[in-house]
């Protein structure tokens, strides 16, 4: 226990400050080929024609790959979590987002690879794109995904993540006021200083060594093995040195394609994304649309919450159903609301598929719930700290998905914040704690939701 709370030097600190830390782009390998991608220049289209001949014949080009070169082109990265695959590694007959990779080339130098990409001819038959998740359910909305415009494979093939708790109609009957709000955080790009880069080296044994900047080495190894239809032991992943990930380097976006180029050319291949590719084509934190309606009493109890969430998954599902599920568990935030009606949809649009970013699924709902609490306080004319302390999670209170809290820190945290910013709390709020509710803190409507923290 000597290390807990102690000031320890970073094990990689000296390497960082002497410029010796080896990122993927710093690995020096002879006989190297440079990869570049042909990316869709339109948001949604059928690919009527794809002519690679000029690129294939170009001096210095050593390999060109398309979906035809991928042993398993569609593989769901989270199939193990029940999310079926929907996204082609390389576009197959159509593109669904601007920047979607269609083909890749490997050439003797970066400039030649870029020229080869320019020499590929694509014939797009453009289709009407969908960008606004609110319009996805309109009868005249273009149908942009094989599953419809939103994900339909939650448990029991439900088309939404649903939470029902208590009796929402009763709560809305009992309420003195209904407070509504709509919250729409925009997409956020991770902007890691290191752009996504992969280096693949074919070994004499027939294995591939893959230098990767992934945040999840074994996970990405599994993804590449699945696309290649290879046993895991034919791959050697080298990594763990990530120049900033923040959730954006879990998509395994470069490794498989670089591996295919390495196999086809028989030479080491490096694919280093440009900053433009990072901004335009890499996955982002999703945009969300959240509608909250709280049934509240004039003395500040939140009796019930109705919530609708639309999560913009972009053109494919990737990890979105998982993110939405986490989001749903936290849709009451740090507060106890006994009657709930939550519906969340993973909606498809013709945007770059979205992914994890620091607090996947939960940062959005924290943003919404906190703003909404303040809104409730404003509309009721109550203090925003007091309303939070009253409704704060306490020992035995249950979460939206029925887990009883064993040791929630909401009360002391809010008290500390009030103290830190010099906000005077009345004595009874100052003396609150997070222990199990009793007396005035356990009104009738909260009794039924109390659970047993030992149960989990």
């Amino acid at each position, binding site marked *: 226990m000597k290390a807990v709370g102690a000031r320890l030097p970073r094990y990689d600190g000296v390497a960082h400050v002497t410029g010796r830390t080896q990122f993927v782009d710093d690995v020096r390998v002879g006989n190297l080929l440079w990869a570049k991608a042909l990316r869709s220049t339109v948001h949604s289209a059928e690919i009527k024609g794809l002519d690679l001949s000029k690129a294939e014949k170009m001096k210095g080009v050593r390999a060109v790959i398309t979906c035809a070169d991928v042993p398993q082109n569609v593989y769901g990265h989270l199939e193990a979590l029940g999310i079926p695959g929907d996204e082609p590694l390389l576009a197959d007959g159509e593109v669904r987002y601007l920047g979607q990779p269609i083909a890749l080339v490997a050439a003797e130098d970066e400039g030649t690879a870029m*020229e080869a990409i320019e020499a590929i001819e694509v014939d797009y038959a453009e289709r009407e794109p969908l960008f606004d998740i609110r319009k996805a359910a309109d009868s005249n909305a273009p149908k942009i995904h094989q599953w419809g415009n939103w994900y339909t494979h939650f448990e029991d093939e439900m088309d939404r993540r649903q939470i029902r708790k208590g009796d929402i109609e009763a709560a809305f009957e009992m309420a003195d006021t209904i407070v509504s709000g709509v919250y729409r955080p925009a997409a956020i790009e991770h902007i890691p200083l290191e752009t996504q880069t992969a280096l693949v080296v074919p070994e004499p044994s027939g294995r591939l060594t893959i230098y990767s900047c992934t945040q999840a080495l074994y996970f990405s190894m599994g993804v590449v093995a699945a696309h290649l239809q290879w046993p895991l032991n034919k791959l050697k992943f080298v990594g763990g040195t990530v120049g900033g990930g923040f959730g954006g380097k879990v998509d395994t976006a470069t490794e498989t394609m670089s591996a295919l180029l390495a196999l086809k050319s028989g030479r080491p291949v490096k694919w280093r994304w440009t900053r433009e590719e990072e901004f335009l084509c890499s996955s982002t934190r999703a945009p969300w649309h959240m509608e909250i309606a709280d049934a509240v009493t004039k003395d500040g109890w939140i009796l019930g919450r109705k919530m609708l969430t639309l999560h913009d998954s972009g053109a494919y599902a990737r990890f979105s159903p998982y993110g939405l599920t986490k989001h749903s568990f936290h849709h009451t935030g740090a507060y106890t609301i006994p009657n709930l009606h939550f519906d969340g949809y993973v909606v498809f649009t013709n945007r770059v598929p979205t992914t994890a970013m620091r607090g996947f699924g939960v940062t959005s709902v924290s943003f919404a719930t906190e703003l909404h609490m303040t809104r409730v306080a404003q509309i009721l004319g109550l203090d925003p700290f007091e309303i939070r302390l009253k409704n704060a999670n306490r020992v035995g209170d249950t979460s939206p998905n029925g887990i009883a809290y064993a040791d929630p820190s909401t009360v002391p945290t809010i008290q500390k914040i009030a103290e830190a910013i010099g906000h005077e709390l009345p004595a009874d709020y100052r003396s609150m704690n997070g222990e199990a509710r009793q007396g005035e803190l356990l009104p009738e409507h909260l009794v039924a939701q109390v659970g047993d923290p030992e149960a989990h």
Partner: protein
Amino acid sequence: MTRFDAPVLTPGSPEEAVQAFGDGAGVTLIAGGTIAMPEIVHGRMKPQKVVLLRRSGLDKVSREGGKVTIGAAVPISELEQGDEPLATAAQNVADGEIRAQATVGGNLCAGPGRDTPRGDLQAPLLVLGAQVRSAGAGGERTESLEEFLAGDYRRRLVLDVSYSPADATGYAAFWRPHTHHYTILAIAAARANGELRVAATGVAPHAVRLSGVEQSGNAADALQGIEPPDDALASGWYRTQILPRLVEQALSSL
């Protein structure tokens, strides 16, 4: 590497630079490289022949009899302590490392960015009544900055820019914050010999004078003859809302 195979000439004097440039056909000029190099690296510009102005002797600043002459290859950092409103504009170009590398000539001839305004020094120089001396097809010529920007300025080799300091100046700008900010809109104003000049960055492909304001002295006339574009930084509508306020601010220090 095919992108970088173009021959590079490094003239050692202004005369050699003029000769190397010729009529500009097939020549890519690089001084600081801050604009040209990313275009070349990303394959958007494919030079046939490069003339590098590093040692061409075009990096002198001189003051003679009230006239200031700035060589095309003078780094922007050298203007930071000079005459307004050039000094404030220069201080706010990118960051210190870029300012030390980027040049006045490069900034003048920047050409519109794909998504953002460039050429922050154009507006201050317009209000200072700058004259541009350049070489190229038809030989050397000196003309007002307005005439220069209205002509084939991308095919000229700027030799120097000269102006006389104004009696009173103003500058107001609105930036998108970043490690170095991006100028959304900037207004330069100057009064010299009783004449009012006002110019704007970010309302057109290059800086333009606001003739409405120059005539009336009134910020309300800022939008006369101006149609600000939509770009990655701001919509045209947004610019029309902000522009009169910035003009008011710039005029208030005259």
